[in-house]
């Protein structure tokens, strides 16, 4: 079974939990005392990931770190439909890769702002928030036009991809970092759609879809 070196409140670890939940892939969560224990900085943990960060997976001996790289691996290996990481559709694959880079941006701004507020990380908070708003404004417009094209997801496909999963946690947790989504209604509607996916799972800070 896949082992996930995991921290409950980490947006990047949640990306993996959400992906495996959506793919219905069983996994074992190995809780890392990320905070306040800083277990990921211990020599013991650096034997698993010398870079000293999480998430890390160990899939039957195959070890991989970096949140978005793990998403690529999980979808490529465990999604028989080929939708989540569209290897067989070069155009869509390129688009997906492009939006994964965008997700690096939301991680470094919106999720960084969250770490500043929640765990007192030493970041330039005003720069993080301004950067997050710049990206959210772009994404809101992008998703608004997607809706007008009759599409629901970040990439131009009728189904979600790992790009949605890479961006979603940074967006939906942004208010913890003081980045309001009041100005981004299309972004809010998209988060509702992600929450309605079969197999969707939550983490502390994310509300489930309403019972309807």
């Amino acid at each position, binding site marked *: 079974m896949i082992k996930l070196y995991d921290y409950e409140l980490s947006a990047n670890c949640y990306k993996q939990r959400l992906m495996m939940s959506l793919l219905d892939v069983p996994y074992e969560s190995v809780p890392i005392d990320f905070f306040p224990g800083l277990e990921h900085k211990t020599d013991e943990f650096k034997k698993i990931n010398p870079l000293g960060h999480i998430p890390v997976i160990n899939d039957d001996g195959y070890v991989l770190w970096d949140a978005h790289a793990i998403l690529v691996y999980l979808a490529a290996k465990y999604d028989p439909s080929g939708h989540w990481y569209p290897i067989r559709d070069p155009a869509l694959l390129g688009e997906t890769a492009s939006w994964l880079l965008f997700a690096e941006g939301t991680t470094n701004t919106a999720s960084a702002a969250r770490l500043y507020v929640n765990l007192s990380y030493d970041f330039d908070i005003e720069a993080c928030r301004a950067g997050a708003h710049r990206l959210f404004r772009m994404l809101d*417009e992008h998703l608004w*036009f997607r809706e*007008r094209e009759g599409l629901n997801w970040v990439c131009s496909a009728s189904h979600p991809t790992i790009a949605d999963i890479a961006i979603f946690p940074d967006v939906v947790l942004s208010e913890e970092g003081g980045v309001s989504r009041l100005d981004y*209604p299309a972004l809010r509607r998209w988060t509702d759609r992600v929450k309605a996916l079969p197999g969707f799972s939550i983490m502390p800070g994310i509300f489930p879809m309403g019972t309807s």
Partner: protein
Amino acid sequence: MTDPTTLTDPTTLTDPTTLWHPVATMLDLPHRHIFHGQLLGREVAIWRADDEFINVWENRCLHRGVRLSIGTNDGTELTCRYHGWRYSNRSAGCTYIPAHPADAPARTICNRTFAAVEKYGLVWSGEDPIGKPPIVAALDDGTPFTLRNLPVNAPSQVVLDQLRQHRFQPVASLDANTARMTATEVNDYAIALTSTALTSTETDTTESSTAVFFVQPVDSDRSIIRAVLTEVPAQVEQLGVLRHHATALGKLVIAAETAAAQLPPPEPMVATINQVSLALSVMPEPMLDRQAPLRVQVARKWITAQDIVGFELVSVGDPLPTFQPGAHLDVHLPNGLVRQYSLTNGPGDTSSYRIGVKLEADSTGGSQCLHNTVREGDVLAISEPRNNFPLRRDSLRTVLVAGGIGVTPMLAMAQALKPMGLAFELHYFAQADEHLAFEEIRSELGDAVTTHVGLSPDETGAELARLLDGYGHANQVYICGPGPMLETARTIATAAGWPDQAVHFEYFKNTTEIDNSSSFEIALARSAVNLHVPPGKSILQILRDSGIAMPSSCEQGACGTCVVPVIEGKIDHQDVHLKQSERDAGDQIMTCVSRAAGDRLVLDI
């Protein structure tokens, strides 16, 4: 660069709280979504119910101030995320407080609502708007086409100033940059712009497009541009037009934000929060006379016939108490009403209680609430089952006569008689086939059930006369149904020779007008207390006021729960529960409606 001195002097603007402003577009309100908006510094939660009604509410739960926009929209109610308080579509009244499932929320717990009007593809609202949303002739004459709204970190008047210099191309020549712009001021928060361009030099043809730009004042330093074209472009052109405007407005947003950054930051708008009423500000007292000790969850709610909904209720705590056929429950509804419903359960089945509820056309809120508000998963407070309609199980023949929803206790009785091998027949009168409820129970009872559908009152009487013809020893008849049918059945049974003791009936309700104008004394024989019952008060109320715990249920003289033995005194019976023979005996009284015929009654309590 804008010269700040050219901005409209805010003191000359119309008071924005008196105006209608656009707060959302219809695209913002998809099915079961809650839109998070803001106007003049006040946050609002906007949601469309399944009946298409658009609710614009202050974005805070009255309980602990949590934003309602993080709650859930189930199509008829909005539920707060924090404690599950539910607020109704339209009225915004609180319908359910899960922490106290036995209590009704005070009727006055009601969210602050704002007017909402749909016009030009936009949702309009306001703090205290006068009149109607603005009329824009160009939009009324055309076919409005909503463009993408853009948020701007700039005051509304800075945005309007930029809009006066705004440029876009008419639909027919999006790629050119040749348009002449003309502007028409609509009001302090809206401007109409017409773009005209030469589309053919040969024929000297010009084309023009008009868009109206409404600027929503979100806060003192934030706005949203909501633009509407006066004509819908051809389908193939729409995306191009939308992108053209998004790009042009995107530049305007940057310019407006740059201009706003030159200005001193304005004071934020302060949206006052209304105080709750004095009555709501104090902790409510615990409910006295608590007659509803059980907590049940609605495990299943289903439509069993037209206008009849079945409810299956399972215990939340201890196992459900046992019951007798004919028993009913008091169901304490989330709207504060208490209603009685007969159990349909077969004998010994206490895994759940099952009741049937007919939507009454003249419902005062009981059946309405159960049909429309209560849903699967809800917790209800109920009484223990009480039986004022006992079934004799020593009879040679039992005739069960049900009219409409009166079938419910009869189903319980029939299911009790069947395994005992006692002869019985269930006659079920209904207006139409689609009104016949609980098919699954009736099919188990087989041939013992006869349905009589669509009979006129006279035909019903004739049928009853046929059924009740020929009383035999140890025969019993049980009748439950509407008042006129019961009266008819009683008369027919008496005429056919059925003794009073063999005729059992249960009324839905007491339709006689209660006369409570008399005043008299009551003496409580066991406690040696004398009490005065004044006009307007019932014996039951006076007993409770003096600290005597009295059971009651329907409190209209139908169910029989509040019966008290009478030792002495003439009784003014006003109930429909007691049979004539019981009335004549004069040894019991329904304390909720009946009174003394003379000056004094001696009660055996």
